[in-house]
């Protein structure tokens, strides 16, 4: 792997004009084979490099960003960042740039994944599509080589190449649909056929979906559903900015029992089963952060800016977001839910006895961040559970849940965990996901019904 991203960061740093300077470079070579009705219809092949510069001049901070990397463009970038700083009032709360620290060793680069070209990406999509037949397949295969490099005037010189690949399939017909997805940093670890088969098998069981009256039900949530729900909850509730601005459901509750003792959630950017990262966009080493431990609220993630404002003297946990997202504060990008003791999802279904089974969620909305209330729909595989077994399929259900309440009574979680993709691939590529088991909860609040499965 070349060091071009770090070299570029250092060239931009050399061009910078300020008392302090910080450069983050992201490069991307990616392919996206998106398909619908079993045909690729939105292919996207991207080659890009983005240089993000932050300078500090006489206590004033300014930023600029470009994807032009020639020497004159980097000088222009330096001029624009300096101008932004000079016109800003001094920022007394700015904590200064990070100092160099040792980075954890992580492995998140795979030569074979990096080498995948347009033809291979199209073929891998084709294998997933074929496996879903005779149902039509909707989804994508994507893979990428991306790099993050951070260089600062304080002496940080960090570089990490990353690969990632995701295969996602909805197998669907007029009144049936099923969903499956796998994400990994090693494309060869996933057979696309597995995803197509899983989606088609799930879809075949959704014909003839029944409705369900609103009310509180016990439920089993597959990792797809639990992962997305926790990611949305975490944006406010596991963020240091959420604590400072009193948006977090953990406000004033650190140290309290807020969930079932079976529930342990960390942000673990170092787990090789996830999408590992060594450092954040400020060049701070990534740390494993306990969020909920045996049901007790333990903490949140921080970047340097929010940590400096923390009344309890928090330190950055290595969760500074990409510079364009800095205003949103630090965010968990590697949520990891501790495994349970159930040997299978079927065992969770038995534990629930009577309730509903949810494959995945759709279009979540945060109704009340302080109470962790989120609404959304179930989709592509919702079933009734009766007498400890999967029974009839259900239409898509609207749910409105307070996540702490959903986690407060958890009969079990599976031993097996799965990495659930959380990248929607907006802006620059930065792979992220949630590593989680399936969960059984006694408290899943259904507030309405939508359409049936299928197109």
């Amino acid at each position: 792997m070349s060091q071009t991203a770090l070299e570029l960061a250092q060239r931009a740093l050399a061009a910078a004009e300020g008392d302090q300077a910080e450069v983050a470079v992201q490069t991307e070579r990616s392919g996206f084979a998106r398909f619908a009705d079993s045909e690729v219809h939105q292919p996207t092949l991207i080659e890009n490099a983005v240089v993000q510069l932050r300078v500090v001049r006489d206590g004033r901070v300014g930023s600029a960003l470009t994807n032009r990397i020639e020497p004159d463009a980097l000088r222009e970038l330096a001029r624009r960042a300096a101008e932004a700083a000079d016109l800003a009032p001094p920022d007394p709360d700015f904590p200064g740039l990070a100092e160099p620290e040792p980075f954890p060793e992580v492995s998140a680069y795979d030569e074979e994944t990096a080498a995948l070209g347009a033809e291979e990406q199209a073929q891998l999509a084709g294998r997933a599509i074929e496996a879903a037949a005779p149902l039509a397949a909707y989804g994508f295969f994507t893979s990428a080589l991306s790099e993050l490099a951070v260089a600062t005037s304080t002496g940080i010189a960090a570089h990490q190449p990353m690969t990632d690949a995701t295969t996602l399939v909805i197998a669907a017909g007029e009144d049936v649909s099923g969903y499956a997805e796998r994400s990994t940093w090693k494309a060869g670890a996933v057979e696309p056929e597995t995803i197509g088969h899983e989606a088609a098998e799930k879809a075949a069981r959704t014909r003839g979906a029944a409705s369900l009256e609103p009310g509180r039900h016990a439920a089993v949530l597959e990792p797809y559903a639990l992962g997305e729900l926790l990611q949305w909850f975490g944006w406010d509730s596991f963020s240091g900015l959420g604590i400072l601005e009193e948006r977090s459901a953990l406000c004033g509750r650190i140290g309290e029992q807020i969930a079932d003792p079976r529930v342990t959630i960390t942000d673990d950017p170092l787990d090789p089963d996830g999408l590992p990262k060594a450092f954040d966009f400020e060049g701070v080493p990534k740390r494993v952060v306990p969020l909920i431990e045996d049901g007790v609220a333990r903490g949140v993630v921080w970047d340097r800016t929010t940590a400096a404002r923390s009344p309890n003297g928090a330190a950055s946990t290595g969760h500074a977001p990409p510079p364009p997202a800095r205003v949103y504060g630090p965010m968990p990008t590697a949520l990891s839910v501790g495994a349970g003791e159930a040997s299978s999802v079927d065992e969770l279904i038995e534990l629930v006895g009577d309730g509903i089974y949810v494959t995945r969620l759709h279009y979540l909305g945060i109704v009340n961040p302080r109470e962790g209330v989120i609404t959304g729909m179930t989709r592509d595989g919702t079933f009734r559970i009766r007498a400890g077994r999967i029974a009839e399929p259900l239409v898509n259900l609207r749910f409105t849940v307070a996540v702490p309440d959903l986690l407060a009574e958890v009969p079990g979680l599976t031993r097996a965990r799965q990495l659930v993709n959380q990248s929607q691939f907006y802006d620059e590529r930065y792979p992220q996901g949630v590593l989680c088991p399936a969960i059984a909860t006694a408290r899943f609040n259904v507030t309405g019904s939508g359409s049936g499965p299928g197109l």
Partner: protein
Amino acid sequence: MRQLCEAAVDAAVAAGASYADARVVMRRAQLVATKNGQVEEISDLDSEGIGVRVLVDGAWGFACDRRTTDEGAREAALRATAFAKAAPGGHRRSLALVDARTAEYRTPLERDPFSVSIADKVDLCLRAEEGMKHADVTVRSAFVRAHREHKLFVSSIGSAIEQDIVEAGGGIEAIATSDALFQVRSYPSAHGGSSSQAGWEYVEGLDFVAQAPRVGEQASALLRAEECPPATTTVVLDSDQMMLQIHESIGHPTELDRVYGTEAAYAGTSFLKPDDVDSLRYGSDLMNVTADSTTPGGLGTFAFDDEGVRARREPIVEGGVLRGFLTSRETAARLGQGEGGSMRADGWSRMPLVRMTNLHLEPGDGGSLEELIDGVPDGVYLETNKSWSIDDKRLNFQFGTQIGWEIKGGRLGRMLRDATYTGVTPVFWGELDAVGGAAHWQLKGLTNCGKGQPGQDGHVSHGSSPARFRNVQIGVKA
């Protein structure tokens, strides 16, 4: 740049493409944001590159490169062509015929928002923040944005279109908290303020400083307001919440690519079918919806879309009956009607998609907001979106608003917090029983409409007057 696009198109055609287009896009975006009396962010972004789209034996290919050089253009063209040749599927895609066009377009504006000094922008934000100060307000924030996109489109049918689009906008927000409550008020809209295709005059017209005291006071008052109770009742929505209602329950379901299932894997499909035009009853007789890419100030305004189809104003719903879809050249050809006109891409590195342009609920004869409320013996009035969720076919929705008021005997009563309402799209629109008049019609622009994989942010405007709906379920709780 035109030569660069032509080189890409020529390379694609030489490599076997039956159709090719190339877009060079140069984007600049500036953000000035303050929070609690301090500058939170001053950033200045520029990005440029070329995107090349090809059709080979009925299969699409798209590749892009940040290098605006001959080498970058040709390599993108060849990668796009290679992918299209390898793409799995039967591929019978065709495009509606359009004429070759040569044209230029430039946003009409009075004052370039990039010419306003950063110091003046910081000063405006800080003065607005000062006005929101209140005992219970714990977070005050303000921002202004400027955005320019210069793009050149060249296609193998001979079109060459150059457009220079400028946007300006911003917003202010106050958050009030107590031991158990978190309440927010925003102006002129939530989730990123409001923007217009215009100059700095748009931001000045928003008059943040004058609006700030109300925003701060209402955020504070919400801490003492009662929670919106559950009921089925009459709801009056302000223009701002109507924008969200139009966007989610009319805009997205009438995108023809969703109707054909090509967004199934992400944003979802639609409850509409291609043959529903002229027969499906979408709402009451008072419902008239127009897609208009010529609206002055609209974020979806242009001379030509991103596949070279001219701007237009078309009915989507007339008298409550579905009259048309938002289309591309490909989906129009499949429908056998029209030529497209709604294709836009998020910069140079994304393939154009069917997107809303400017989608409006036409004004009615309901008069002012006060007149709409006057006709309600018992109901609620709701303002400004707080949360939103809708199912994959765009039928079942649940939306929350920042603030509400009880309506009793045609008058506003006590303030209500945490109001939500839910419904099913055609049932809800069927209960539309009054639309405010033209004097109360407002246009606002949003910049966070997500669609596509990889994801694309769309910039869209909506216009609406306040409107009234009967028999709406409110007060959904966890």
